[in-house]
């Protein structure tokens, strides 16, 4: 495996969905190629960081408007019959 081939298999490797035969080649390459090893580490850390990030809070006035709109919509469509 060359560095460029490792790059093409990178997604599957970090997601743990890589074919076992390719996985072995991948790990053999990394053992002998420090730059690729560090790229894989960096990439894992990048994904972990984004996954762990907090969602953005709604602006408070918008949140109130949103909930009011939903309640109003509900009332309009669920009017008691009679």
């Amino acid at each position, binding site marked *: 495996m*060359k*560095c*460029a081939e490792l*790059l*093409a298999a*990178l*997604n599957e490797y970090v997601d743990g969905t890589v074919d076992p035969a390719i996985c072995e080649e991948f790990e053999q390459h990394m053992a002998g*190629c*420090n*730059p*690729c090893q*560090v*790229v894989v*580490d*960096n*990439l894992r*850390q*990048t*994904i*972990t*960081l*984004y*996954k*762990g*990030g*907090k*969602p*953005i*809070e*709604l*602006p408070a006035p*918008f*949140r109130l*408007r*949103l*909930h009011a*709109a*939903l*309640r109003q*919509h*509900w009332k309009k*469509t*669920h009017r008691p019959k009679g």
Partner: protein
Amino acid sequence: MDAFEELTNRYERRVYSLALRLLRHEQDAEDVTQQTFLNALEGLENFRGEASFATWLLRIATHAALKVIRKRKGLDTVSLEEATEETDRYDTIPHPEYIADWRQSPEELVHQREVQRLLEAALARLDDRHRPVFLLRDVEGLSVRETAEALGLSEANTKVRLLRARLQLREELTRTLGNPARRVIRGAHNH
């Protein structure tokens, strides 16, 4: 309605964050968020639980946001897929340049305010074709298949775009978070 309000409380931040990150415009993100929950309220009976409720909501939000993006670009009649299929191939993916161990672990970094700003800024610099894929797959945790379905892309194309997004973010983050003393230079023999 109480049950739906409960669901809204639970998921409104994720829907709003996705919309804001996709659209980078507060008013548009608010409109998309409101539309998403209204659509969900109306279509609740159609939710069959094949996917999780979160995935279903994020899909509705993605469709609404893509509609806004298309309108902005004047592409009302052309799908995002058709308009942008061209260059997503593995052999044109840029090779990593700045390679260095990070100074701190993601666990230490994630709570830092300036790191959050860095993450948002790096996301904003992603191409419109790559940002949605990364957001759905890696930020929101959808599978590759769910991401592809939500965006109307093939799985193959989704994977290439995801790789481009991940590598670009790695590059940008490592330039700031990497330890220059631990920088690795790729030797000529490695190529």
